[in-house]
């Protein structure tokens, strides 16, 4: 683990491991408790495979009552808990801790209710993202957020990470498509937020839970909005001699009032890697390749295709293909969707970053990345959710070369600093986890971070749920609660009043 400090294991918990395992077996009978090292190996990391750690014990509950009892038991005995969905996090959000129960929600895998008149699905958190669409597609419906891991990632994990996907420019993120959840707090209390109706009463705790990376509560049920599938979708594949022209084309499309279903850009290294891999027919003599997908009724799609084509031409596109069939549309996407494995073919390892920037800063950030690439002596390929400014630089390295992982991580950190410098953020959709934890001060000052930690204190005052993630330095809630103001020390404010 390249220098990542995790919370020090609690000696008392480690000493009582056998007793804790036995108690877990009472709470979750049957096959739901795994404590043999070779069997726990499957859970030692998530999608961020550079970090590995065996947990204290793996527990796979089947009922809300079991989740509640496990958490209450751990809360009472000061035992840490790390929740896990499908384990596809790219930021180490589900990385186990040596002294923590790993609470795996994969057995919560049933769809509880499909309600077409109200267009909602109620699912257990272990149902996969794609599983929701599969359950309703025979009626022509789907669940809109589509992270690229959608075949495997769980809807509970999507809530924890506020997952996006290529279609979130038009259809929103997880936060915009979840109507309600049931969750269990660290003290074992079961709480419902929202439901089949719109807007939660009181504070928007649903909004805070979405994207909270498993630090506030364990989700045991999710209610999502489903949508009717658009009648049709077509795509344009547009090449530009420079990324500036590609970026201006994106700005002009949006300026014309068009919000495409998806708008993706790739740079030259990514184009070449993808084309070598899947032979999608991508042009190899361009610096930027833009895929613009328009969906809706065919009359609308045809109308907008014409507008986008004209905008592309005005911005100096050197190639513009328009899909004439569903097969051709899918072929445009084939290279983009295979971009990660394609880069994996040309480099022994790659490290995927996830910053978001104001779109207009793309040329500056790409130029900065080229300089950093030279400085570190590592290659970089870029795929970019162009519509919303979410950038995925893939840093090429070889883990077998001593020091290269460290170098790749430093390169990545510099890229994220650059994103923040131009007005962007550290992570658009992969989460902070352990990966970007120590970069949080690049974006937030101590007061900002303290206020976030105080939210944590309202949910989990003992910092037992998923500690070591998101926050670079945990501060005790009692310390955070202190107020450092005293009567008479603050002057009566010298501002207009009457």
């Amino acid at each position, binding site marked *: 683990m390249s220098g990542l400090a995790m919370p020090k294991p609690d000696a008392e918990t480690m000493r009582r491991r056998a007793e804790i395992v036995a108690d877990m077996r009472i709470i979750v009978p049957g096959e739901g408790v795994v404590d043999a090292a070779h069997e726990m190996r499957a859970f030692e990391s998530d999608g961020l495979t550079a970090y590995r750690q065996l947990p204290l014990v793996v527990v796979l509950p089947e009922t809300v009552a079991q989740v509640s009892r496990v958490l209450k038991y751990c809360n009472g005995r000061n035992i840490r808990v790390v929740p896990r969905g499908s384990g596809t996090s790219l930021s180490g959000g589900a990385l186990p801790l040596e002294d923590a129960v790993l609470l795996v929600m994969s057995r919560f895998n049933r769809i509880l209710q499909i309600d077409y008149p109200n267009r909602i699905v109620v699912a257990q958190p272990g149902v996969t993202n794609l599983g929701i669409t599969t359950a309703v597609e025979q009626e022509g419906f789907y669940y809109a957020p589509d992270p690229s891991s959608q075949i495997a990632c769980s809807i509970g994990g999507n809530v924890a990470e506020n997952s996006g996907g290529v279609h979130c420019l038009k259809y929103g993120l997880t936060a915009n498509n979840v109507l309600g959840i049931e969750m269990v707090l660290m003290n074992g209390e079961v709480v419902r937020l929202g439901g089949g109706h719109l807007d939660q009463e009181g504070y928007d705790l649903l909004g805070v839970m979405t994207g909270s990376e498993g630090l506030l509560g364990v989700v045991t049920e999710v209610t999502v909005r489903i949508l009717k599938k658009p009648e049709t979708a077509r795509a344009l594949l547009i090449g530009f001699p420079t990324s500036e022209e590609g970026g201006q084309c994106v700005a002009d499309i949006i300026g014309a009032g068009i919000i495409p279903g998806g708008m993706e850009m790739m740079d030259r290294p990514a184009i070449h890697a993808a084309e070598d891999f899947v032979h999608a027919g991508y042009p190899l003599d361009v610096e930027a390749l833009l895929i613009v997908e328009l969906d809706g*009724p065919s009359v609308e799609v045809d109308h907008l295709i014409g507008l986008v084509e004209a905008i592309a031409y005005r911005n100096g596109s050197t190639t513009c293909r328009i899909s004439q069939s569903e097969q051709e549309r899918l072929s445009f996407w084939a290279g983009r969707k295979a971009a990660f494995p394609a880069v994996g073919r040309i480099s022994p390892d790659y490290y995927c970053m996830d910053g978001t920037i*104001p779109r207009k800063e793309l040329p500056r950030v790409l130029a900065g990345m080229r300089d950093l690439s030279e400085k570190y002596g590592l290659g970089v390929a870029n795929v970019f959710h162009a519509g919303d400014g*979410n950038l995925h630089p893939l840093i090429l390295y070889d883990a077998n070369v001593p020091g290269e992982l460290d170098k790749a991580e430093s390169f990545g950190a510099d890229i994220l600093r650059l994103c923040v410098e131009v007005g962007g953020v550290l992570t658009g959709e992969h989460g902070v986890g352990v990966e970007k934890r120590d970069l949080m001060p690049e974006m937030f000052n101590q007061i900002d971070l303290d206020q976030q930690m105080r939210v944590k204190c309202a949910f989990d005052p003992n910092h037992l749920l998923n500690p070591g993630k998101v926050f670079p330095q945990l501060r005790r809630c009692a310390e955070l609660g202190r107020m450092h103001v005293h009567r008479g020390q603050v002057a009566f404010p010298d501002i207009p009043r009457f």
Partner: protein
Amino acid sequence: MTTFTPSTSAEVLSTIQWAAAEESPLETLGHGSKRGIGRPLQTEHTLDLSKLTGVTLYEPAELVLSAKAGTPLAEIEQLLAENGQQFAFEPMVYGPLLGNEPGKGTIGGVLASNLSGPRRLKAGAARDHILGISAVSGRGEAFKSGGRVVKNVTGYDLSKLMANSWGTLAVLTDVTFKVLPAAETEVTLAIRGLLDDAAVAAMALALGSSAEVSSAAHLPERIAAKVAGGKHGSDAATLLRVEGFGPSVVYRIEALRKLLGKAGPLEEIAGEASKTIWRDVRDCRPFTDGSTRPVWRVSMAPSQAHHMVMALRMQAAVDAFYDWQGGLVWLSMREDDPEADLLRGLIRKYGGGHATLVRASAPHRAALPVFEPQPPHLAALSARLKAEFDPKQILNPGRMA
């Protein structure tokens, strides 16, 4: 009794630091257009944000706008309109319903009360469009959350937490919202003469089609005459709004006609006339009568709400109309009694949801929970959260109680 009128974020900070040190509660106000919602406050001092104004960043191509919290909503909407853009969540204006001037309300108030409108169904509420905030907590600390980009999962989303917090957690100084292109064309298809249950079925059918209906409301008989100055008559009107590019709107309206042709007589209302109807639905125009008779805003699952209304009518004299495919019910009590327990009991019976007493006399607001009471565990969690932001209870104390 002091009214502070800061014009900079630093002045807001020093005011709250002073109030925190003195443990002296403040009532926070923008224009006060929604002051009548919530339990009446009796604070010694007032924090008036109406001078904390100005759009600080607007980049139409980046779909982003930032403003100081006291900036008038009307001013921002005018600026957006000049650039062919809008807040897609269509924030309602409460003033006239509550007996205040029209056209008032600040952008901070939009977030603090999580405003939305008929397009909530498709486009979400203020909570779905807020990108970032700067605020001062009741601890007297200035903090920020979020940013200016749409895709951002860096840290907890404290911006969303400000939505519907009614100034009880922190005082907003700056907000950054996502903005979107305004639709080129809008047409409303009205089905006339339906009863509530048939209207709800028709709206569900329309929303379940690929016609991308952006709003669906049902105005029962007589209520229909109270929008758009009565020019569309008093027959019940079930309204479906379709927005977008011209050719697409024509096509989708035609698809809806085919789908709903047997439901009842159909009318098309286009352009400004359509916009007027939806503005009136948004602002609860049918119950804007200059009185203080109780008005409830109820959110339930769309298929359930009209059953609740039917059951309520057996025991109380009410007028009702529906937005959000039937899921948002505006209820006006004909007598002065809000019937809070009866209504909330029926909401629970019909699948749950929540009711807010948005208009009522001060004695009713002091005596009844204006906002939906929460189950004990959730109420305790909310109270802990409030204490983490405002341990001395100096920000709008009791307003949401």
